[in-house]
């Protein structure tokens, strides 16, 4: 085997595997960089609704956000790294929120706190409510709950820190702010007759053209699959017998067939599992009280194991 001349490594001719193309080995630097970023994450002092109260409670003495280097709540977006969207985002409020987000310097993160900020929450059906801030801004971590308790929020913040820990300086997707040129600002929504996302102008225009042609406009175009589901929903009380007899409806619907197959598989799995458990309990059936104790201990251990696994993930 010929000796590899190390100088060859520096030549552009040297074959570099595809996945290594464009990479520079800076792992330790990444670590340092991530550590400093995640340990001085300054949230914006910016509360929307109920969750904001829990956010303040998190920052207060009992849960003490400063243990994570996050106690410096900045009132100005120019000085903050993290936007905790804490509460219901209304259409009227999303305009300032997007503007604030655009004013934050990169790297910037968004944490959707609570059900409302994640997906509209209990107020989703309201006419003035945005179903999730992620329709307008990229969200890094979602914290469910209504409202999340301070501990739940802390868990979310730790999740965000973990996310940052997993990023690499070498990956442009992780650190897009080192790209060329200024970052593209998120277009600010417009308040017309209803809120208008500038990114959706084309869609809206298309609908307007439909209207000009005298075609029905403003009606909901329900996707076909959903329609099928809806008809299936209206039917089941009276029709299943007919369906079973003719054997068409379910069989024709590939989606439902797939679902049924999946369900069958799940049932089979469950059966196997329950069989196992039943067998296990039969074996250990003799000393009854002891079994109870064992069972409890076992259960708890399994539960803890599960939680641990989840955490590790």
């Amino acid at each position, binding site marked *: 085997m010929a000796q590899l001349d190390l100088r060859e490594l520096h030549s552009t001719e040297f074959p570099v595997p595809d996945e290594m193309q464009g990479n520079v080995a800076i792992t330790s630097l990444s670590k340092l960089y991530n550590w400093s970023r995640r340990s001085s994450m300054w949230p914006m002092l910016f509360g929307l609704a109920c969750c904001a109260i829990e956010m303040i*409670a998190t920052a207060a003495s009992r849960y003490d956000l400063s243990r994570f280097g996050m106690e410096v709540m900045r009132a100005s977006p120019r000085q903050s790294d993290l936007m905790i969207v804490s509460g219901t985002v209304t259409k009227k409020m999303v305009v300032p929120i997007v503007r604030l987000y655009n004013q934050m310097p990169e790297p910037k993160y968004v944490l959707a706190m609570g059900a409302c900020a994640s997906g509209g929450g*209990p107020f*989703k059906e309201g006419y003035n409510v945005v179903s999730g801030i992620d329709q307008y801004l990229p969200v890094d971590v979602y914290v469910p709950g209504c409202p999340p308790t301070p501990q739940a929020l802390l868990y979310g913040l730790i999740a965000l820190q973990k996310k940052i820990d997993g990023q690499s300086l070498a990956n442009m997707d992780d650190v897009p702010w080192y790209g060329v040129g200024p970052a593209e600002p998120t277009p600010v929504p417009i308040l*017309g007759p209803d809120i208008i996302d500038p990114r959706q102008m084309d869609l*809206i225009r298309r609908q307007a053209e439909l*209207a000009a042609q005298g075609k029905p406009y403003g009606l*909901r175009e329900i996707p076909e699959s959903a329609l099928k589901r809806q008809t299936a*929903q209206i039917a*089941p009380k009276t029709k299943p017998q007919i369906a079973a007899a003719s054997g068409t409806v379910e069989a024709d619907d590939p989606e439902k067939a797939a679902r049924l197959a999946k369900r069958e598989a799940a049932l089979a799995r469950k059966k196997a599992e329950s069989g196992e458990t039943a067998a296990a309990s039969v074996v250990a059936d003799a000393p009854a009280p002891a079994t109870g104790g064992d069972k409890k201990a076992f259960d708890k251990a399994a539960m803890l194991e599960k939680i641990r696994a989840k955490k590790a993930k």
Partner: protein
Amino acid sequence: MTVTEIPLVEATTSETAISRLKERFPGAVQDDSRHGYSGVVVDKSKLVEVATYMRDTLGYDYLSSATAVDYHGIADSMEMVYHAYRTAGGPALVFKAQTDRAKAELPSLIDVWPGADFQEREAYDLYGIQFAGHPNLKRILLWEGFNGYPMRKDWREAYYEEEHKPFESRWPAGWVRRAEELNVYGKNVHYPADFDLAKLTDKSEESLYSDLGLGVNVQDLSTENGHLKTDKLVVNMGPHHPSTHGVFRMIVTLDGETIESLEPVMGYLHRNHEKIGERNSWNHNMPFTDRLDYLSSMGNNHGYALAVEQLFATGNKWNPPSYRAECIRVLMVELTRIVNHYWAIGFLLNDLGAFFTPALYAIAEREKILDFFEATAGARMMCNYMRFGGLYKDLPERMHSVANLINDKVRDFNTMEYLSELINERIPRSIDELDEFLTASEIIKSRTVGVGYLPPEMAIAYSAAGPLLRASGVPYDVRRADPYSIYPELEFDVAVRYNGDIYDRYLIRLDEMRESVRILKQILPRLEKTKGEPVAGISQYMPRVPMGESYGRVENPKGELGYYVVSAGDEKGPQNPWRYHVRAPSFINLTALGPMCVGHKVADVVAILGSIDIVLGETDR
């Protein structure tokens, strides 16, 4: 000190008041004869006259609530419902004015009761009723240019599914689908048919500034006679200003540093509480009320429960809450008041610039009370604890926690011991500590004494409520003026202060906390005595409520919280409220913000706002 001049009161009850009205305005005032309704219907051409008579002669000087109801489908009319009270106490005089749906127009009562200002604007915004004579009839919760009047019964939101919950699609064939999937734009939006994107203008901002004479040329600022000649300056504060307690916005016109006018802009947290509330069933609304004034959810629960219980009481088969349930209700509500005032004082000091130390001290104590709420009701903030005719569950024997996650540390306290220690030792001590910490401080005094003065007659006229009203020398407390629950048998004083400035509003909160502790100390032995009494409310999950209207109000920490509910449309008793309106104290107290701020410096605005103690969930609903 100004003493409120109590107008000459002729009639003593609302019945005599009504008969006096009918005498004075024959033909224009008629009894509301619908089943379950009370009060009078006033002809709209005479409305202002009748209202003036009511205020000046009959002594109904306090307009508590003014709200619109759309009777689309029952009658082709909309009506405004007014609840007027005497600050001397007593029940309401309810009067209504009806108008056509197609051309909804009513005279404005802003000249009689300036407190009608925001409420009429809200009715215009959500129902499209034009108020003749209103000087500033603009949208208040939504933005200028919004399509339609959303609270009208025939207006449908983008995610509309059905008129009423429960929705059919959830069961028995409830394949999950997100609402986004079924909306044509994939978002919660709905555009009108004649909408032209090319002509789109964002009128929402423009309309706010249009009256103010926007802009100032800095080059024009020059010295004249040695003084800086200042021009008017329009400054926008909010909606994410750190001192606005949420997403409140003010547009302030300044002359130098002095405020010339201030216009509150709200609606940044308008999450359609009332529209959703009318889709909901009666029970469904209970957890939603938690999210109104999210610092005092127990109080919100109580008000709603009272309003609906009034309706239940008109039907048969109704068991009012047991004595123990009432005791626990009062216990919870008074603890909530303490929690809220801790928060209010802490964050008032924040607004004054004492950044976070007082607030941290105050809310450290709050945590102890929240622990109790969590162990009893299940959540720290969104308690959802009260039910019609009772409570969710009795107090637990022990405030017991169970290890569930790794590193969990359990706690185990005896509930009654915890409570008595909390009420007898801990809370009074911390109130005294706050008092010692803040009251005498010269810095606080110089920032607050004499600032944001609200004279009592103005406080009444602007329908101010709660600590804001009582700090101006008006001893009006719903717990005493129109008693409910077991308050009549409890011993406590209505806290009053007479200077009407920020300092007094701070002091009155301390007073109220002390009064609450006094009430709580009386509740504890009652709890011991009634141990074992059932407290559960009605167990139907979809109760039918007898037809009629009711207005339930409680003295919430922020002021008078009222619920106007109408049960109509179904003979058997509807499962859903026809109208569900919240008279939010924060919202109406803000009417007085502008007048209070005029003449003060811009730095005082945040302090004055903090002293009103608003919460946006309730303001915008």
